[in-house]
Structure formats: structure tokens, C-alpha cells
């Protein structure tokens, strides 16, 4: 029995190491290529650690494309969207989960129904509408179309369902009004839920491609994803610079993810999947 256990542990580790290699191969290759000369990238067998690391690649990308502007634009949009998303969805979710009011079921159904509608199915009318508001080629357009997602409300509501009503009742007896209950009880208790929503929203907005592609055609407004894409199409043969820029683009998301991940599984556990 003990021996059998040992074998199965070894097997599990073997599988996990295989998975890790598959998951990380592109990233390690990216990192390694970003420090090479273009002509050395495709040498085989793969030279994982470059003999003469080309640190200059990381200097050059900042002058070859306006990478700093792209990052600034993306950071601005992402921070505002994440903030609005967290605030408005946790606010609305409080009403959906803890208050009784007229039209609650219909309104909630409207939210749920739109989760199943692909954004791409209404992106064209949305674009025309934004254009008639004079919002194409503004960051505001991207912010407005990302900040009020049905998914966020749904997720936070599921999370709040897990917080006992008796807690709210007790607070009411203590004389708190609903705004105070939201701020002093619900928000502090929903850290895992908020962290999860932060990761989802941050990642989605930072990595959004089609939205900015439609709305932002001026170079000085572009986000990092379409900026990077533009760079790739313009300098398709300069592999190492492309890879260096890609590494830079990955770092912010990685930082956000690693700093919030301790709440992450816990957060997912308490939200979407309980149905």
C-alpha cells in the first residue's frame, strides 16, 4: 500500500512537470529570445541562455515604438474600468442579494440574459451609438463599454448570497442604514470576491484587443495590445524586439495576479459556481 502510494505520487509529479513545461515553454522562449540577436533566435538545439545577452533590446523598444504612451493609456483605462466595475457591481449586487424591491426579478433576469449574448453580436450598433455621441477615438468609449458588465453584478451577487442575512438584520437593529451596512459590513467581508473580480476585470481590460481596435485609431490613444500588434505587423522580422516588448507587456498583469492570487481560488469558490 505504501509503495503504491509512492508510485502514484511520482506519477503525479511527472504529469505536473510535463504540464508545467507545456505551460511555460512559450514564456521561457519569449524571455530567452528577447535577449538574443535576431539571427540567433531560431538556432537549434535551442540555446536557452544566450551567450551574450542583448540587454539593449530592452532599451531600444522604448524608442522604436511609443511603448511608454501605450502603457500609460492602458494603465489609465484599466484602473478606471476596474474601479468602476468593482464599485458599481458590488453596489448593485448588494440590492439584488440583500434588499427586497419591486421589479427585482425582472431586472436580474435582464442582467443574466445578456451574459449569454456575445459582445460581438452587438458591437456594431454599440460602435455606431458611441460614434453618434462623438466618443470614437476617446478612452471614455472603452471605459464605458467595459465598466458595467453583467458578469460583475452576477459574480458579486453570488458572493453576497453566501453572507448570512442575520448579520444584516443585526446591523439594522443597531441602527445602521443600508449604505453603512454596505460600507462597513459587506465590503470588508467580500475581499475574496472583490479580489477575484479585480483579477478578471484587470486581465480582461488590460488584454482587450477588439474594443480598442475598433475605437482607437490614433496612435497616441492606442493601448498596449493594439500598439504591440502594430509593432509586430510593422517590424515582423525583428523577432527579438517583438519578444522584448511582449515581456514588458506581460509584467503588470503578472504583478497584479501574483499579489491577489492568495484570495483567488477562495474567491472563485464563493462566487460563480454555487449557482
Amino acid at each position, binding site marked *: 500500500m505504501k509503495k503504491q502510494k509512492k508510485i*502514484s*505520487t511520482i506519477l*503525479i*509529479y511527472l504529469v*505536473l512537470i510535463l504540464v508545467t513545461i*507545456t*505551460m*511555460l515553454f*512559450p*514564456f521561457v522562449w*519569449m524571455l530567452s529570445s528577447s535577449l538574443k540577436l535576431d539571427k540567433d533566435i*531560431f538556432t537549434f538545439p535551442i540555446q536557452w541562455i544566450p551567450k551574450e545577452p542583448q540587454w539593449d533590446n530592452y532599451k531600444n523598444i522604448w524608442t522604436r515604438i511609443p511603448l511608454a504612451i501605450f502603457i500609460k493609456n492602458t494603465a489609465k483605462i484599466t484602473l478606471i474600468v476596474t474601479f468602476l466595475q468593482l*464599485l*458599481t*457591481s458590488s453596489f*448593485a449586487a448588494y*440590492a439584488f442579494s440583500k*434588499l427586497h*424591491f*419591486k421589479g427585482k426579478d425582472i431586472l436580474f433576469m*435582464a*442582467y443574466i440574459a445578456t451574459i*449569454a*449574448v*456575445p459582445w*460581438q*453580436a452587438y*458591437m*456594431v*450598433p*454599440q*460602435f455606431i*451609438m458611441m460614434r453618434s455621441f462623438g466618443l470614437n477615438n476617446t478612452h471614455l468609449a472603452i471605459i464605458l463599454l467595459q*465598466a*458595467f458588465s*453583467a458578469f*460583475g*453584478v452576477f459574480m458579486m451577487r453570488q458572493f453576497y448570497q453566501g453572507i448570512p442575512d442575520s448579520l444584516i438584520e443585526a446591523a439594522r437593529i443597531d441602527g445602521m442604514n443600508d449604505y453603512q451596512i*454596505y460600507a462597513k459590513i459587506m465590503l470588508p467581508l467580500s475581499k475574496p470576491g472583490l479580489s477575484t473580480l479585480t483579477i478578471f476585470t484587470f486581465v480582461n481590460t*488590460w*488584454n482587450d*484587443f*477588439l474594443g480598442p481596435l475598433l475605437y482607437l485609431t490614433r496612435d497616441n490613444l492606442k493601448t498596449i*495590445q493594439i500598439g*504591440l*500588434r502594430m509593432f509586430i505587423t510593422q517590424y515582423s522580422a525583428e523577432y527579438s524586439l*517583438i*519578444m522584448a516588448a511582449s515581456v514588458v*507587456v*506581460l509584467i503588470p498583469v503578472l504583478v497584479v*495576479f501574483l499579489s491577489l492570487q492568495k484570495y*483567488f*481560488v*477562495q474567491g*472563485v*469558490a*464563493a462566487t460563480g*459556481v*454555487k*449557482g
Partner: protein
Amino acid sequence: MEQIQKINKAAKKRKRKENLTAYSFIAPNFLGFAIFTLGPIIFAIILSFYKWDGSNPMEFIGFDNFTRMWGDSRVQAAFINTIVFVIGTVPLTLIFSLFLAVLLNKKIKGRNIFRTVSFFPYVASLVAVAAVWNMIFSPVNGPINEILKTLGMMDPPRWAADKNWAMVTIIFFSVWKQIGYYMVIFLAGLQGISEEMYEASELDGANSWQKFRNVTLPQLRPVTFFVMMMLTINSFKVYDQVYMITQGGPGTSTLVLVYEIYNTAFKNWDLGYSSAISMLLFVLVLLVTVFQFKGEKGFVNE
């Protein structure tokens, strides 16, 4: 009598106050949601019955856009390719992410590191990883084909450049990219299964496989259903990776519905027709979702 009226009045007043409080909580999100999501959805439905280029007056043409779609070979190709993509991606992602979640739910050393690593492709920028993907799967001198050659495969696939392999390449990429996300959802579901159920089945002498079949799978059914639904909806929306890896080619071998919606709208400015294709996508997703809900109910009733 007067007393009762007073109480009634007070209750009504309280009720009204509660309604108003609730609306004040919902309003900020709902306003944005109604204007930027609900409005455009309704507009899209209307637009699919019109001919419009975005600047000249709209012209009502009834079902013409839909009958035109029927004979459009590009839409047909996009329709079939989207379904192929969904059928290829959904089961692969589902099985691999469940498998990985079960492994990473065991109490083993370093499991947090493995979890983080598996989640990493999901958070990584699509543009960046698609660029790498194009390079490592390059048919000429990419490392994948070099490795295949050293393993004795003399004529490795030409991946994105071959019309028979292009969709496979996109599917591989998508599975790799999203496995971590669904794994986390499964993981969360697994943590909701009580330890006692496993212990009970262990007492009955069940081995690992039996425990998986008799405890894990049934307990995980709601989560599996949720994952399958989200995964299917998301797969129908495939666009970004196609744009970055194959641009719909070679030929129309990876042309998908959203790609065609985008082209029709923003290249040809044929907005009514593009909305009609959107309706096709919408109805397709709706049908599959309803079908899945029915299937889930059938399961539960058995």
C-alpha cells in the same frame, strides 16, 4: 380603525423607502448597462432587417439579409468553422482542466506553484503569446518542428500555413490559453466537496478511480455544467486568436463568424448584413445554451 390605517400608511412608506434605497444601489450600474449593453442589443435586432452603410438613410428590407446569408459561401464557411472550433475546444478544455484540477487538489508539495503556472497563460496578453506561438510553431525553422524532426518525424505539419492544420493550431492555442481559468473554477468546486464523502467511500474499499467516478463527478455536476456553459458561450465568440495567428486563412479554413461580422461591418460597411450574421451567432449560442439547460434538467431528473 384609524390606528390600522396609520400602520398601513407607515408600512407603505417604509416599503417605498426600501424600494428607493434599492434603486439607488442599482442605478449606477444599471444606467451604464442599459445604455451601453441593452440598448445596442435591441438596436442590433432592428438593424438586421435594414440595409445601411452607416451614413446614408436606413432602408427597411425585411428578411433579405437573412435570405442572402443562406447563399453566402463565406458565411457558410464561417458557420461551419465556428462549430468545428467549438466541438474541438470545449471537450479538450473541459477534460484537461478537470484532470488538472483533480491533481492540484491533492495535498502535494508545491501545488501553489503548479496552480500559478497553469493559470499563467490565461492572464498573459493574447497579442504577446500569439506572437510567440507563431514563432515556435513556424513551419520553416520553429522549435516545435525542429523537435519533431529530431524525434524522427520527417515531414512535420505546416501548422497555421496549412489549410488542414490551421484550425488545429488555433484549437491547440485556445486550449493552452484557457485551461488555467477553468481549472480554477473546477478547483473551487472540488474544495466544496466534503472530506467525509471520500472517507465513507474509502471505507467501502473504493480505489482512486472509483472515488472519482462515484464521489467527485456527481458532486461536481453543477460546476461542470457551469464550466461547460461558459466555455461554449466563450468558444462561439472566438476571434482574437484567429486574427492574430491566421487572419482567417489559408483560404477560408479558419474564417469564423465573428471574423466575418467584423469584416462585413468595418471593412465593407454593410451594417445591416453584419447585424444579421450577429443574429445567427446569437441564436446559435442561445439554442446551445437552452439545449444544455434542458440536458442538465434531464440529468437531474434521472
